[in-house]
């Protein structure tokens, strides 16, 4: 039986035992998450190049980062990803879920949208790289259909290359978002919808004023996840264009990898990683805070 002290807490021997039980998990989290993060922050203030011991350079890496001519392109592309890769896959996912919910054979209609999710990020990039390359499948199809874009160099021109990769990601992500919204649709209470139907609401009006507000808590989560994932976009860009040509499709995460690993400037790369973490953290915090306070105020 657990012993309790006079103040209601655990007796010291039990407390010690408790620490024993939680310590493996705490050590694992500290060792694999907190320590690497703190070490990366520390490296961001040094000139570590992998060859010589790191020496402290103060804010030099951050100054250099802000003066880097490629920063503007990188930030612009990251913003395009943050907006495009959030709005389009989430919107499309919602549309698929709503249109296929409650109809006969809905699962069959949804299946083609779900399958691409089985692909890894790198696999997706390789496949779409072949489709989108100059003279590739996309150009061939557009040419055969007599549509504009048959000679478009999708992966070369900016910002077409970023837009093309956002479309590729949408192809993969829309299905899983649809799945999440479907779970939401199944879990929302039936009564308000039935009441609205009795009052004569159907179609768009029913969705806009009843279903959509009931889905809001789930939408907050789906949009939040997509937003954070898109701010960190790396794999699809690195595999498809390596951030090029001439750095024109680079995102902040690609800039970080490139500076740290390709140029072997680990200190500078760590500073970019730290800056990116701050941006991602701040955006996520602001978004969630706004959404949560909106929920508490009973807007939805």
């Amino acid at each position, binding site marked *: 039986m657990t012993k309790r002290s006079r103040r209601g807490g655990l007796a010291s021997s039990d407390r010690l035992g408790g620490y024993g039980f939680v310590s493996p998990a705490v050590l694992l989290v500290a060792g694999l998450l907190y320590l*690497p993060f703190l070490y990366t922050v520390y490296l961001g203030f040094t000139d570590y190049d992998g060859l010589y011991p790191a020496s402290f350079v103060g804010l030099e890496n951050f100054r250099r980062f802000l003066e880097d001519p490629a920063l503007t392109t990188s930030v612009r592309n990251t913003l395009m990803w943050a907006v495009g890769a959030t709005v389009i896959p989430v919107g499309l996912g919602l549309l698929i879920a709503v249109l296929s919910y409650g109809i006969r054979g809905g699962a069959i209609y949804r299946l083609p949208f779900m399958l691409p999710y089985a692909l890894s990020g790198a696999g997706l990039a390789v496949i779409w790289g072949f489709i989108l390359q100059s003279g590739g499948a996309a150009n061939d199809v557009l040419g055969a259909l007599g549509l504009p874009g048959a000679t478009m160099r999708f992966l070369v021109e900016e910002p077409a290359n970023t837009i093309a990769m956002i479309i590729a990601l949408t192809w993969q992500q829309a299905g899983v978002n649809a799945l999440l919204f479907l779970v939401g649709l199944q879990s929302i209470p039936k009564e308000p919808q039935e009441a609205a139907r009795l009052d004569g609401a159907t179609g768009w009006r029913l969705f806009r004023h009843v279903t959509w507000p009931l889905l809001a808590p789930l939408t907050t989560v789906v949009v939040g996840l997509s937003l954070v994932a898109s701010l960190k976009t*790396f794999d699809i860009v690195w595999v498809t264009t390596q951030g090029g040509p*001439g750095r024109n499709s680079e995102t902040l995460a690609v800039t970080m990898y490139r500076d740290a690993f390709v140029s*072997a400037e680990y200190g500078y790369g760590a500073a970019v990683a730290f800056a990116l973490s701050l941006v991602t953290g701040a955006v996520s915090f602001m978004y969630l805070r706004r959404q949560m306070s909106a929920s508490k105020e009973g807007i939805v």
Partner: protein
Amino acid sequence: MRLLTAVVATAALALTACGGGDPAKSEGKTQIKLYNDKGAWSPYFKDIGALSKQQIGLEMEPVGYTDAPTYDAFIKASFRTSVKPDLFTWHTGGQLEEIVKAGQVADTSSLWNEAIGKGYLPESLKPYYTYDGKQYCVPLNIAYWVMFYNKKVFDDAGLQPPKTWADMMTAAAALKAKGVTPFYATSQLFNFVWFQQLLIGEDPQLYNDLATGKAKFTDPGVVKVMQQWKSLIDMGYMSDPGDKTDPQELLKSGKVAMAPFGTWFNTSMTQVGMKPGTDYGMFTIPNVNPANTKTTLLFESGPLCILDKAPDKAASMKFAQWWLEPAAQEKWATSRGDVSANPKVTIPDPSLNEINKAAGSSDVALSSRFFELVPAPILTAALDAFGAFSVKPGDYQKQLATLQKAADDYWAKAGK
């Protein structure tokens, strides 16, 4: 998740870097590992490994990487950990100088002296491996930068390998008229090739001065080269840089007629089933400026290095010594279909032998490839600039200005 992975990878690397300590000594090894960034060459490395076991009782097992940044990061991390390669491939130029200065690489002067004495290595190769009068590493391979061409496409257009730049432009016009793209170009890693070829063929002194900071990328001579490069793109002579098809496939299909590459590209051509001498050939690229008396042949050499604190330095040195001998080099050159650093080795491919012969003749001057010529930070900026230029050739002045800014930063830091 992606960021997290990257951060954890960075930190893991850093944490392993903290590990330090002396390497585990294991004297008298009978098996050594050769780490390399040439994963596609694994079968050829394995052939060599089997031969070394047979001849010197030392089996070599290759550990091949295909991603250059990952490989370079691993090698640099190994300097500070106990996981050290017995042998590893690296890069000449600034990158070799960097790790030599850091005291990581074993002195191989004795191997060089012996090999030059026996005629296994040419004296001319020595400067590329010399720092402060001592030699480091031995040549893994050498390659000359030549033009590969599809013989059938040339025959159909009634063309012969050109002897002058004007001939090459005439051939390009004829090919273009037949609907064939004359030259291969890319916006990625090898985007520097046309720059180096046009500049060295026009003004070798300016080319070499860029490497030492004596000349600027904004100098009129460099601007002229960019304008010439732009005109080749504008005339439709270059393949689309956004095409991800491998150059060997483009040459094989006949969509593209010529591709400038190092002689190591021979391996890629034979791997797609092209027969040397029948399906394709190669020629030395003529000078742009006919007034230049010698044809400049661009040249690269990849080093095979030994760490100063290698797990069993004696075994690694023994392998490197054997590596330079004709038996090893014959196997290496023949299986890959490339030239050898050992002048005593001849290879069956007549085109390659011709290039090898030309390289040694008095009509030809050798010059280092741009990739190894300029310091690493300038190279990185140059690859970015040329990549951007290949997409928007009209922006050449902006790209040259950005590149010069990176060069100025580097030289300012180096001069401190």
